[in-house]
């Protein structure tokens, strides 16, 4: 548990992590920042996406692990998010930065 990281979204912590959008199966870690910025043309505003992610439980300090990847382009992904399972597209996942503590062998 990295309680010290919880709910802190300062940029220096964010720079420690990698985007969830690029993670592979088995990657696990703690969310360090949620921004709503996906880097692609947005269908909804960044602020709106950020709030949706937060409401689904993608919040700084939450544990994520990539459980499954889709067949085509390894998209979408299914993640364990604390004690729930959530499916999302890589595009939205890229708004979430994670400090991974374990990567697949």
């Amino acid at each position, binding site marked *: 548990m990295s309680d010290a990281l919880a709910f802190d979204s300062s940029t220096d912590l964010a720079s420690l992590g990698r985007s969830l959008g690029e993670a592979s199966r088995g990657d696990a870690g703690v969310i360090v920042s949620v921004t709503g910025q996906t880097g692609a043309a947005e*269908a*909804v505003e960044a602020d709106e996406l950020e709030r949706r992610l*937060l409401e689904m439980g993608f919040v700084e300090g939450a544990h994520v692990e990539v459980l*499954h990847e*889709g067949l085509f382009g390894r998209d979408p992904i299914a993640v364990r998010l604390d004690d729930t*399972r959530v499916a*999302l*597209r890589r*595009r*939205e996942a890229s708004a979430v930065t994670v400090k991974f503590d374990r990567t697949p062998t």
Partner: protein
Amino acid sequence: MSTEAATLGPARIALVGNPNSGKTALFNALTGSRQKVANYAGVTVERKEGALTTAGGRTLRILDLPGTYSLRARSPDEVVTRDAILGRLAGEPAPDVLVCVADATNLRLVLRLVLELKQVGRPFVLALNMYDIAQRQGLRIDLERLGAEIGAPIVTTVATRKRGLDDLIAQAEALTISHAGEHASTWREPNAAEIRAAHAEAQRIFRACVKPPERPDTITGKIDDVLLNPAAGLLILATLLFVMFQAVFTWATPAMDLIDGGFAALAGWVGAHLPEGLLGSFIADGLIAGVGSVLVFLPQILILFFFILLLEDSGYMARAAFLMDKIMGGAGLHGRAFIPLLSSFACAIPGIMSTRVIDNRHDRLTTILVAPLMTCSARIPVYTLIIGAFIPQTTVWGFLSLQGLVMFGLYASGIVSALLVSFVIRKVFWRGTVEPFMMELPTYRWPEPRNVLLNLWTRAKIFITRAGRIILPLMVLIWVLATFPYPPEGATGPAIDYSFAGILGGWIEPLLRPIGFNWQMSIALIPGMAAREVAVATLGTVYAVSDPDGATTALSTVLSSQWSLASALSFLAWYVFAPQCAPTLGVVKRETNSWLWPTVMFVYMVALAYLAAFATYHTAVALGAG
């Protein structure tokens, strides 16, 4: 207090909570209703009201609402929830008490919603539902502390077993009297920082009150390793659907033969015991041949629903949506379109209504427009009749029924054309961006046998009532049209050619001759507008009236001697696309609030149906099936 309670007016209680927490199951348990419950998000898209009477004789009106993660409504179904809770619905005050229904095994997110609900200022109870699962997992929740932290009474419930209901009712009723916690609403849309703060507070409460389960669910992960395996997953999904359609054919046959035999015997008995003439013809040809030809499909429809219910209740639906997401996205469909489209296999009407979970207008309209291309259960009678009459009952590769294979092909054509149409809409007309897609994958559960049986029973009742309410009166009308007027003296052709039906069919037939339809097929399309399966009943009556042996010859036997294979295939192709269902068009009008979209739907579907039937007919004729 009981007498006092009885003199108080009725109170209104609303059920709110995250999707899939068991609100509708609780609503059904409390009010004795039979609303649909299933193990995935987005099942309830409307507000539903029911009532119960407490032990003290007081009436409580219960409101079931669509599930949501926040009051910040984003899609039409969530707007309903927000407005109902805040008392913004026209002519409807805010509920007296809120019951926040939580999945006890998944409290983290709902605690944040609880904090939001507190700002609304209605007294509320927190119902920890699915407490059976929590106990099985050895999850320990400090109820007293939790109650103190959130400042509301807590009850534990098992909605599917009706446990904890009395306690819930008592607590809710007490709040209607004490008004504890009531204040003016201070709720407004939270910004990101406020959501984060609420999360932190919810997290603190969660840590303080909930100890992690001793025996956490591990089976879901193991099942998902197989079912969501990138390569095997899609194959398993395809196999499941395939087995489903095979079963619809092979399992149903004995029961269908029984029903068919029953109606033939009944028609024979009527023929033998009623005097030859108008009345006998009316009962045997009009009622028995018409209604019987539809009712015979009950076993198939029940088998189809049985499979769908198992998939829904187990939690597989959300996985199917995950597996299909890329394919659907490639066709320009929204990630949440999968479940509305899948419900459309039962009937396009609930499918179109469940598009309310889609937030973006263009995404929602696209889904509505293609939903009727998914093969609804009312097409089963049409498909089965024609397949049974024209496709030999042989097996392919030793184990596949050829008839089942053709059926699968028809379903597949529906799905593929839905994808193509949506692709055209999204790439040509509405080129837009892709909406975010996030969905919880629920824990797998054994389907509740009671839920499955009740649902099947409801389905059977709907089907039979439809046969009685819609099909029966139409059959009377069609029998009249097919019987009167009598042919003139000295007429040579069959009597039915001189009837209204014959005349009318003769008018339409030239339009449909290029696609290989005879006048009987043409006339069957008209009453088929009311309900697709009526086309089968119409054929039943039209051929029974014109056949001296009447209703005792099986309709499929008559058809196979009267239609060419090319015409039969053309009829099937027509039915894959034809918008022959006035109720569906009505729902589209209601959901889009305009006549434009039903018109667009009707025109594009008729055009596709005509083209497909034309191509099928001429290809078949060229191949020698004319």
